[in-house]
Each structure stands twice: as C-alpha cells, then as structure tokens.
C-alpha cells in the first residue's frame, strides 16, 4: 500500500499499476491531505467563507471539495472571496496589502506543509499583520499508519512510505511498522524507478521473511529527518486528536496552533456554527482511504462520480485515488 497521493498518481500515470497487475495488487491508502480532511472541517471552512470581509486563502485542491451543503467553488460563485495561493508566504504578503479583510489560510496537509504554514505565522507576527490567520486541519502520517496497522480487517503485506513526509520526520519515525507490527516498509521517492525500487525491496524482504523500515530515498531522507523543520512545527503547533475522513477520531494525529498563537488561529478567532455534517450519499471515499475498497469498487465511480462532477474528495483532488484511477486507468 502507498500512503502518499503523489505516489498514487505516479503509479497510475506511469503505467506501473497495470504492468504489475498480474503479480501484485497496489492499494492506495490515506495519502491525500484534501481527501482525509473530515466533512465537518469542510463544512466549517464553508461557514468561514460566508463571513463578511473574509478571504479564504487556499491551495487549489480544496476549492472543489463538496461539503454537506456547498463547496468553496459554489460559495465563490455566490460572492464569497476565495483566492488560490501556492505558498502561505504569498498569503501573508497579500494580507499586508488588504488590511481591511480577514485572510484565513487553510492549513491543509501533512508534515510537509506544516513548516511553511508555521513560518507564515512567524512572518505575520514579525510584520505585525493582524488580519492573517490559519485554520489548521493538518494531519500527521505515523498515527494514521498505526490506525491502518491496527485494523483487523486489513492485511497489507508491505508499505511504500511517503518520501516528502519522511524528509521531515526522518526514517526512524516509521521504524515501528517493521519493529512492532513486523511488516516491511520502504521509503520511496517519486520517479517511477524510485517506486519500482521500493516494490522490489518490499518483495525481497517478503522472500527473505524479514521486516525492516528501509530508506529507499537516501538522496533526501535521513534517519532523524529535518531537525529544523521539526523544531519549527514544535514551536507553533501541538498534537491534537483529529477526525479523519473514513477513520473517525485518531489520537494525536492532528496539529493545532499553540495557545500562545491563538491570535493567528482561525478556529479560536472565528467560532462559527457548523451545521450537522453528513457524508455524501453513497460515497465510499472513507472506505477507499482506509484501503478497504479500490476506487473501482465504489458504486458511484465513473458513473455518478467523475472529476467534472465529483461526489467525494477522492475524485476532486489531483492526488486522490479515485481521480488517479479515473484519469489514468487503462
């Protein structure tokens, strides 16, 4: 199983998936940060977008994700301000220029995006920009790996681990997969050859009846990861129990801004009333994210749910498993 949306896309796009189809099955896990964002968080974001004098600053993929009653794309068409940024630093600069507007940056992502978001708060602090805040729905990968490994119904023989996340966390953070659960794991880069190498190393371990967490992406990943990035995350954020789509509540699997930074915490500053969240009817995104179903096994896949009219987030996001299956299937 791969647990990184970029891996999912490369596997589908390069044709690895169908080349190996007679030999092994590649399952996609909870690798896309947009997809694992809980429905209640999507609904909260939509309520924030409806506040007057507010600009929702977001990475692109969030815009089309359907909440219970609306999406940012719909809200934008109805007059809400939604602006796509490619880095939180740009959003801070933007906030400095438009001091009469509330700029709320959607902190969506795993360990990889958290440092940049933390630095944007540092920047806003430094420049005394008061109208910038972050809604943190960040998620952490090791806790969700534990949730997958503790699932008695799921029998994954090996894990392809996310190269970008591991550049931050380091190899050691995923040691427990092999040492505690006795399942082989390999950290992989993002070239097709990187992924094939990871698959080869996993198979080799299975043949040798061994289980290790191997670093197959040594050009960027180190044992202890990026110490500086981890320090920055630790300075601004603290772990919090978080809801994941498909998994429910996972202990200490999210990141919340520390109390001392509550002025920059959109959750604290703008407590909005969120309607009761309901998952999209008939949508199996939750099961797909948990590796229980492949996208093709969802009854809505490619019939009712397509990239142009997505029902669930896995079909919206460019990194979503359903979108990858839809766009790149043979």
């Amino acid at each position, binding site marked *: 199983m791969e647990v990184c949306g970029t891996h999912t896309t490369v596997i589908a796009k*390069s044709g690895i998936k169908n080349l190996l189809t007679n030999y092994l099955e590649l399952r996609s896990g909870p690798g896309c940060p947009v997809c694992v964002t809980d429905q209640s968080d999507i609904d909260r974001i939509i309520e924030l977008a409806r506040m007057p004098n507010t600009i929702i600053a977001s990475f692109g993929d969030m815009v089309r994700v359907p909440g219970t009653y609306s999406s940012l794309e719909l809200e934008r068409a109805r007059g809400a301000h939604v602006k796509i940024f490619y880095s939180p630093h740009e959003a801070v600069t933007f906030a400095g220029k438009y001091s009469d507007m509330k700029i709320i940056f959607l902190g969506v992502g795993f360990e990889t995006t958290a440092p940049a978001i933390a630095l944007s708060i540092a920047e806003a602090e430094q420049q005394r920009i008061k109208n910038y805040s972050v809604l943190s729905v960040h998620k952490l990968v090791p806790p969700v790996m534990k949730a997958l490994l503790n699932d008695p119904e799921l029998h994954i023989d090996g894990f392809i681990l996310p190269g970008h996340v591991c550049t931050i966390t380091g190899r050691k953070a995923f040691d427990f997969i092999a040492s505690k659960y006795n399942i082989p794991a390999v950290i992989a880069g993002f070239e097709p050859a990187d992924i094939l190498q990871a698959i080869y190393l996993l198979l080799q371990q299975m043949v040798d009846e061994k289980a290790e967490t191997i670093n197959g992406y040594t050009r960027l990943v180190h044992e202890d990861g990026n110490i500086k990035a981890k320090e920055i995350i630790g300075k601004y954020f603290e772990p919090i129990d978080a809801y994941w789509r498909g998994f429910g509540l996972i202990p200490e699997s999210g990141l919340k801004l520390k109390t001392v930074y509550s002025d920059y915490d959109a959750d604290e500053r703008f407590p909005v009333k969120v309607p009761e969240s309901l998952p999209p009817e008939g949508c199996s995104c939750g099961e797909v994210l948990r590796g229980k179903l492949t996208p093709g096994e969802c009854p809505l896949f490619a019939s009712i749910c397509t990239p142009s009219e997505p029902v669930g987030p896995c079909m919206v996001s460019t*990194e979503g498993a359903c979108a990858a299956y839809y766009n790149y299937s043979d």
Partner: protein
Amino acid sequence: MDFKKTKDVILLAHGDGGLLTHQLLKKYFLPHFNNKLLEPLTDAAFFPVKPGQIAITTDSFVVDPIFFPGGDIGRLSVCGTINDLAVSGAKPLYLTASFIIEEGLQVAVLEQIIVSMAETCREAGVAIIAGDTKVVGRGQADKIYITTTGVGYVLPEANLGYNRIEPGDFIIVNGPVGNHGLSILLERESFNFDTKVLSDCAPLHTITEKLLRQFKGIKFMRDLTRGGLATNAKEIALASGKDIWLNEACIPVEENVKGVTEILGLDPLYLANEGKFLAIVSEKEADDMLIYLKKGLFLHESCIIGNIKDGKGNVYLKTGLGGTRRLNMLTGTPLPRIC
C-alpha cells in the same frame, strides 16, 4: 491634485460614441490598423468574394495577465482566430475586432495592444476591416477583452473531417507542447523560477496551407489550445469513434517545461498551446510530411506522436516505462499539487 488635461486613461466617455470615441479611433486604432477596407468607417465592411467556400470563426480573449513572455492579448487575439481558420483548411483573409475596455485602462497599454495586433496582422498577411469599442465601468471587466472574427477561403486542396480518419493514420505535432499555458501560469502566480517559459503564440496558416497543398493524405487538423493535446485528442477520438494511441516518448516537451510542470504537479499534455497543431495523416504520407516539416519548414521539433486504431473513442498513452494509461478530457483548471 493634478489638473493636467492629458487623458492618459480610458474614460467611460471613450465608449459613448461621441467625440472621445472618434478621437480614440482616429488617434490609436486607425493609424495602426490602416487598410482600404477599414478606412470608410461605415457600419459594415465590404469585400469581393470568389467562387468556392468561405470559412468563418469567432473567438473571445480574456487572458490574465494581458502581457506575458512570448506574447500579449493583442497578438493572441489575432493568432487564435487565424489558427482556427488555418486548421479548418482555410486561408485567412480578414478579421473584425471588438474591444471591451475597463474604465481606467492606461491609454499607453491600449496602444501597445493595438500595435501588437497590427504587427501580427502584417506578419500573417491579414487585415482588420471592421471593429467596435465599448467601455465598461471600473471593476466590471478586467482591463480589456477582445473578440475577433475571422473569414477566409477554404483551400480547394483541403478535405478535412472526422469521417476521413481511419485506423492506421498517423498523428503529427509541429513542436513541443505545454508552453503557452505554463507561461501564463508562471506570469500570473510569480513563482520566481529561474527559468523563463515563452508562449508559443504564432500564426499557423502559412504552414497549414503549404502542408495541405502538398499532402492530400491530411485527414484532419486541430489547434491544441485550451485543454492541451490530451483534451483535444479525446475530442477527436470521441467525434471519430476511433481510438488514438499516443507514444509518450515521442511527444516533444521542452526541458524547462518538463522540469517546472513536474515541480508543480501539472501535466504538459493538458496545458494550452497557441502555436501548435495536431495533424492526422495517412500512413503513406506521414514520413514525407514529417521530413517536409523538419527540412522544408524548419520545424525541427515536429514529431509523429502516435496513430489511429479501431476502437470506441478512447485515447491511450504508452508510457516511457512501457505501461499504458488512458487520457481523458481536462476537468477544472490545472492546479499545482498540495504537497
């Protein structure tokens, strides 16, 4: 307060049909677009026709930013419409141009766009023979929108249509794909990449005319604008009911485009082009046509990128690894990845 009488920005009054409108035409549009058919400034332009078929097409241009590496909205508004005629097998003759201008646009900016349109028309050998100008209030449009309509003669040699596409035909492109869409995106979002990606914005009709006169085996052509190569291939496959097989290793993409799209998680096959066409040609003539493109027309990066097979309207891409994947139409705006 500056009480100078210079009108350095466009006012609503420039669009009311009165004196200012007249001055705008006389001072900025007519000197650059100057030609015999436009000169009378009557409600309609007249031109003689000869026997045969006439092709007509129209297109609106709302690009942001209006100036980008390799072109601008003016050049684009001429090339875009000319190229629609070119790939339809027509020789473009005349254009009309309609401008919707936002109040407050710098007159110097407008003039720069007009000059660019005039230069592109001269390069392409077409004339703008009718037009219109409207001004809307500040905030009601984004700087300037241009609509151009083009008419041209259908070349007697051209015999193009979905119905002519057959299994065994080859698919040729005239150069690397993805440049225009990426150049716009990089200019719009200021990513601070060291590399400059230039738009490929250029008129194609002289190339297509030469090809059509020389190769009777050209069955179909399409300019690869919005949605890029992949989306246009899918449209052709659906309309013809045949399958299109593309070979990833043969599709030309510039190195810097490859690098930047990889970093941003974009696919060059889905990015717009403004100077690229896809031609479907009989197996018999494909090699000769490729040699002619490369040696005769100096389009050295032209490639045979795939072929047509019997099927149900699918597009397949043979990947560099030897796998196969299906290509579908673009959905939504291509956006860089999140992590």
